[in-house]
Every structure is written in structure tokens, then in C-alpha cells.
């Protein structure tokens, strides 16, 4: 069993794990965490795909997936930031509404 396959499988496990928790948990922060883990699984598969092509032990990995993952990481952090901001905003608006309801 090659290293690439091993890490590729690990990526799939991370993805499925993240997917399960993203679907089941109700707490928003955790759901965001789960989606991030899903993303990390995908990136892991891509990095593994780059390593797969390592010929005869030479460190000659494919740089294209590396660039893709770098792009993916930046996109993921942007999306996470937007999601977190929305969670905070929803939380504050809900608190405001509750106060108005009480007072």
C-alpha cells in the first residue's frame, strides 16, 4: 500500500467524519468546525495525489495540487470568517429581540 493511498484514505475519512457532524450537530460553531474538517480532508487527498507521483524515491512531487490547496485554504478561511460573522450577528440580533420582548 503506497503512502499516497494511505493519506488519501485518511483524507476521505476526515471528509466523511466532517460531513456526518456537519449534518447532525445543531450548534453553529461546531458545524463550522465540521465543515472545516471536511475541507481539510479534501486538501489531504489533493496533497496525497501530488505525492502519488513521486517516482523512485526522488522528492519530485507535483506542485499543481499544492497550489490548488493553497488557494483552497485561503478560500476556506474567508468562508469561515463570513460564517462566524453571521453567527455572531444572528446571536446579537436574537438577544436584542429577546430584550425587546421582555421589556
Amino acid at each position, binding site marked *: 500500500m503506497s503512502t499516497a493511498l494511505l493519506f488519501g484514505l485518511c483524507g476521505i475519512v476526515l471528509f466523511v467524519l466532517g460531513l456526518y457532524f456537519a449534518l447532525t450537530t445543531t450548534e453553529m460553531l461546531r458545524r463550522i468546525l465540521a465543515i472545516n474538517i471536511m475541507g481539510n480532508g479534501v486538501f489531504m487527498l489533493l496533497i496525497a495525489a501530488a505525492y502519488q507521483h513521486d517516482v523512485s524515491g526522488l522528492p519530485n512531487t507535483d506542485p*499543481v495540487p499544492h497550489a490548488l490547496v493553497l488557494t483552497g485554504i485561503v478560500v476556506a478561511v474567508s468562508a469561515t470568517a463570513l460564517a462566524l460573522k453571521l453567527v455572531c450577528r*444572528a446571536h446579537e440580533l436574537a438577544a436584542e429581540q429577546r430584550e425587546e420582548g421582555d421589556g
Partner: protein
Amino acid sequence: MSELPGNPQLLVWLISLPLLGALMSVACRKAGRWTAMTAMIGNLVLACLLLAATQDGTLRYALGGWEAPLGIALYADTFSAMMIAITALVGAVISGYSLSYFATGSATERSFWPLWCLLLTALNTLFLSGDVFNLYVGLEVLSLSAVALVTLAPGLAATRAALRYLLASLMGSLCYLLGVALLYYAHATLDLALLADLTGDGPLERAALALMIVGLLLKTALFPLHFWLPPAHAGAPAPVSALLSALVLKGTFYLILRLWFDTLEEAANQLGTLLLGVLGCAAILWGSVQAIRATRLKQLVAYSTVAQIGYLFALFPLLGHATARVTAFDSMIYFIMAHACAKGAMFLAAGNILTVAGHDRIAELRAANLPSAITLFALAIAGISLIGLPPTGGFIAKWLMLQSAFHAGSWWLVVVVLLGGLLAAAYVFRVVAICFDRSEVSAPTDTAPRVATINPGREWSALVLALAALALGLLAAPALALFDATALMG
């Protein structure tokens, strides 16, 4: 190098111009609306040029001069040109509407223009790009700007809707990206055309196709995956709802079509096609019934979108059929165009009603102030197109679909289409009857009558889109001649 050096550069400009508009409107906020409008009009001109240019053959542009497996190639045929043209047209009208919708100089307005320009950039990228990963980045720009546009509506409900939309589309993007990763693992290629040559129907291609399609279905809101759509589309500001319903869903749908019938055709099997068709039929019925049960006008229009997306997928089994496919393909393009115009018009009209009446509770509209007849006509014409009555674009689309279904002998599809038309008639007439029946408005109890007037620009833009849907019906022959039905399926 091509013989006509000016032509392929169109592809680059179609992406650069809206992006330039977005950057300019972030940088100089005061002039944001005018830079954005300039970009929109320029985009419309470019789209027309592209439509003309693709009539002579497909265009291809290797970015940076790096050819396919290494670099990214842009690609346009008559189908993508058609999508770009309809996007540009509907987008320009909605921009005109937005000019008078958002208060000049408000924070909302200042965020709207850059976001809308980025959305357009993303749509054009989706229609032109020939690289699966580039498409992923385009998808992310598309969904993040769409979510950001939904957040322009204040209030808790809209924020929650935006959050739900964001999480759903992030999961969709990641499913798509996992598919891309699997394809790269096996073939080390990201170019759509090269992948079409390389891929077979092995388990890996099947898995990759399934993942990519499921991810995109989540973003396109096909029936069981549509849960995020109604709150987001109903909760957003009116021009944003129009953009989301009329254009954004079409971007991801276009990609599904490309992947299913072109790039990964061998991995796509009969069963999957049938499944998508069945889900499409379920979406037609479910969406229409929910629209009938909706209590608010914008909610009704949003559920109608769920149903209309269903028609696009109900065509899938026909597209896979040997003899019926050409008519089915014409029908699909017609559905896309007619729905873009009609649904845009409907949301804009609903926005006008919401502003003037102060609410959009359907049952209470009878007693409310309503905008002038222009808006109501827009609503009525758009509704007729959604039902599929002549002489509108919606009629041509359904007619072609029925023809194709007869050809293929899919009687169940005929039944569903007719039933869907009846249900659509029920929900459209429910609204139209209330809006046009002003006879018995006998000075209601007048609980703080809101006398709001709206800019005539808003009314006329709704009507222009509705008339576009009408024109599609009257000019069916020349419109159908603009694209080549065999473009997609070789």
C-alpha cells in the same frame, strides 16, 4: 494564434470588466453605482459581440499563453454565449432597478454594487472557464457573493437565512472539490476538454461525478436539497432575490449540464439520468403546492423557483434520449431564458408591491395600496410565462418539452408538465386576481395608511423584463436559430 485576434480576447474582457467594476466601486465608494453601471452596460455589449462571434465557431483562449494541462483555458460556444447574453440582459435590467431601489449613498447601496459586480464576474467565469478547479473558485465567488447579497437585508430572519445558505453551499462546494480531487488523483488533469477524452466509466469517475453533481445540486436547490432556498430568496432585498432566482441558480445548473452530458458523459448512466428526472418532477409538484400554500408573495415566488428548477431536471431523461434530445435541448435553453426573464420580473414586481403596500401578505393585499398598473402588468405577464400560456417564452419552452416527450414516448412526463401548469395557474391567478380586483376596495379601516411612492424606473424595469419574456415567445424562431443544439453533446 487565431486568424481573428480580436475575437478570443472577448472572453478575457467578459471576466475582467465586471471585476474591474467591482474593484473600482470598492475603491471609490461615492461613484460606485456609476462605475458598476458602466461595467454592466459594457458587459451587455461584450455579450452581444460574443453571441455574434460564436455563430462562426467556438472560441478558445489559453490564459497566459499556457496550454491546457498546465494553464487554464477559457472556452465559449453558442450555448455559453447564450447563457452570458441572457445573464447580461437580465442583469442590466436588474441593475437599472437597483439604481432606484437602494437609497443613494447608504451603506447597503455601497456594498451592493461591488458584490453584484463580483457575482457577475463569477457567473461569467462559470460560463467560460474550461478548468474544473477554476470553476471551483468561481463557484465560491458566486456563492459567497450571493450570501453577502442576502445579508444586505437587515434583521434576524435574513441573517439566519444567509447563514443557512452559506453553510449549505459550502458543503456543496466541498463535495464538488472532493470530486475534483478524485479526478486529479486519477488523471492529473483539470481541463474539461482533456478530462472528457481521458475519463471512462470506472468506479473513481463515477464517484467523482456523483460527488460533483450532488454538490452542485445542493447549490442549484433541486427538490430534496432546496431547503435553504425559500428563506434566502424570500428574505433578500427584491433586486437580490431577482438576481439569485433568475441567474445564480442557472450558473450552477449550466455546470451540471456540462459535466453530465459532456465532460463525464461516460460515467453518467441511465439510472442517474432517470433519478434526476424523477427528482425534477417531484420538485415541480412539491414547489407548486408549496407556492399555493404560501402566505407571502415573495415566499410564493421563491417556491415557484423550486418548481421551475424542477422542469430543467425533468428534461434530463429526454436529453439522454437518442431522437428527442435536440428538441429537449432547445426546450431547456428556452426554460432557462424564459424563467430568467419571468422570475426576474416577478421578484421586481413583488419588490414594488412590498414597498408600496408595506407588507407582502397575500391575503391582505386586497385592502392595501398597490403600485400602478405597470407593475401589475409586469406581474401578470411574468405569471403567464411561468404557467406556460401563449404567447410567452414559457409557452415555447413547455411546447418544445411536450413535443420532445411525445417523441420519446414519456407519457408520465407529459402528465407532470400539464399538472405543473395547472398548479402554476392556481398560484399565479391567486395573486393576480387579488391585485387586479380593485372593485370592492371600500375605504378599508385605514390603520395608518402607508403612502409610499416608488420611482417609475422600478416599475418600468419590472415591465421590461416581463416584456422580454413575452418577446421570447413571439420571436421563438430567430432566438432558437442563435444556438446550435448539438453544441453540448458533440
